[in-house]
């Protein structure tokens, strides 16, 4: 999968945040070859830190990589160390992404920003693949043999926008918002075809949740509505941003 549009979307979101909350100390989790760090330095003049499961992927000669297995270890940083934490295409590899979200909250300074990205399992191509075959795009079927969790074959945690938002809110973040990297053109005709059904059944379900089950309130209704929004029905990768409330 091409990561350039994802990085571009993360930078776009960071640019929006930078106008409100200027950031300097940047942590990139799952830093890989360091491309995102380089782009942030270039565009925002950030001071970077990199965290990954290995340092072998890093191509920036001067960049130190802090090694951590985030499935079992905490982030190797003190509380309130960063203004911005990014984790692109990481949480789908983690068995316990909620703990990592709490860790991100811990290492961010009050007012700091977190930006995550993961394959969007709510786009129509993915929903239809799940309907027909039971697997989302980029999520299996995984090899039956024990696979390496760091490769694309290691996507073990399919997580839709609502549960990412739920984890972020649960960890203490606010201003949680989704965006996407790019629209999948192949999903557009499917959306045109399915639009009336999605709108009708979506509205009916919302009404039932609100009136009968009483599971909707002012806090979660925008998150639920976003599940069937055009960006999430067409977007390839979901970008979730959130801010740690200032004291």
């Amino acid at each position, binding site marked *: 999968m091409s990561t350039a549009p994802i990085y571009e979307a993360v930078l776009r979101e960071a640019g929006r945040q930078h106008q409100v909350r200027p950031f300097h100390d940047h942590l990139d989790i799952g830093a890989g070859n360091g491309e995102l760090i380089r782009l942030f330095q270039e565009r925002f003049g950030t001071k970077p830190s990199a965290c990954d499961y290995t340092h072998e992927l890093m191509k920036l000669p001067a960049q130190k990589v802090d090694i951590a297995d985030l499935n079992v270890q905490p982030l190797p940083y003190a509380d309130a160390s960063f203004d911005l934490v990014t984790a692109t295409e990481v949480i789908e590899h983690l068995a316990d992404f909620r703990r990592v979200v709490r860790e991100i909250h811990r290492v961010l300074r009050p007012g700091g920003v977190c930006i995550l990205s993961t394959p969007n399992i709510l786009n129509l191509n993915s929903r239809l693949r799940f*309907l027909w075959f*039971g697997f989302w795009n980029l999520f299996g079927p995984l090899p039956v043999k024990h696979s390496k969790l760091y490769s694309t074959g290691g996507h073990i945690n*399919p997580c839709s926008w609502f549960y990412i938002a739920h984890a972020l809110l649960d960890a203490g973040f606010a201003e949680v918002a989704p965006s996407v990297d790019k629209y999948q053109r192949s999903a557009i005709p499917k959306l045109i075809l399915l639009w009336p059904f999605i709108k009708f059944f979506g509205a009916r379900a919302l009404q039932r949740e609100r009136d009968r089950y009483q599971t909707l309130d002012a806090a979660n209704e925008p998150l639920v509505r976003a599940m069937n929004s055009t960006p999430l029905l067409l977007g390839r990768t979901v970008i979730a941003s959130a801010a740690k409330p200032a004291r």
Partner: protein
Amino acid sequence: MQLSSKQTVLDFLKDQPFSAVLDAPSGAGWLAAGLTGCATVDGIDLYADAPGYRKIWRHDLDLPLPADCGSYDLICCCEGLEHVGNPLLLLREFFQRLTAGGRVIVTTPNVWYPQARLQYLLRGFFPSFPSLVGKIAPGTHMHITPWSWPQLYLYLKLAGFTEIKLLPEPLSEAKHFHEKLLAIPAQIHSRKRERRAKTAEEQEFWKTASSSAALLGRHLVVTAIKP
């Protein structure tokens, strides 16, 4: 937990040898009541105390199991895995607390049945996964981790278990005709993968994936062994 899954678990256990059982989460204590006289049963639950247990811990299953928890030859996790944020930790903890040759039984709502897939297509949510946010009242069904046969198989494998089997339960049948139709592509896909399988394990996996229990059942009842 629905009656049919409870009955499936109890029927299965009739023929199994075990003497020390951990029930996590223990809920209202139906398992201890069902196994009275067969074994000593310990329980773990976040909220409820229930009768019939030798010992019961009030404990969050998103954390490692209590340090003074013993070792068991059977661990049952009925309708618990969908509530936890870190299911792999829980399964690994079960693995550690089981004796060699011990068995785990997991039951959880199945999100693979056609009506659930259709609902996901139209809403982005699965049935029985309500959109709750914030503090949840004790006993509220805050399901946060959806499970299908492949996903549960993967996590049990990652935790170290073998001989992973899906038990059919009485509700492993289509409720509506359109569900039978919607299940056909997945059935064809799984059978094709079964034919192309290179190992016996892979073949068994896809055979199960094409079964009614995996494709049509409302609940998964899965057992696995610690080698």
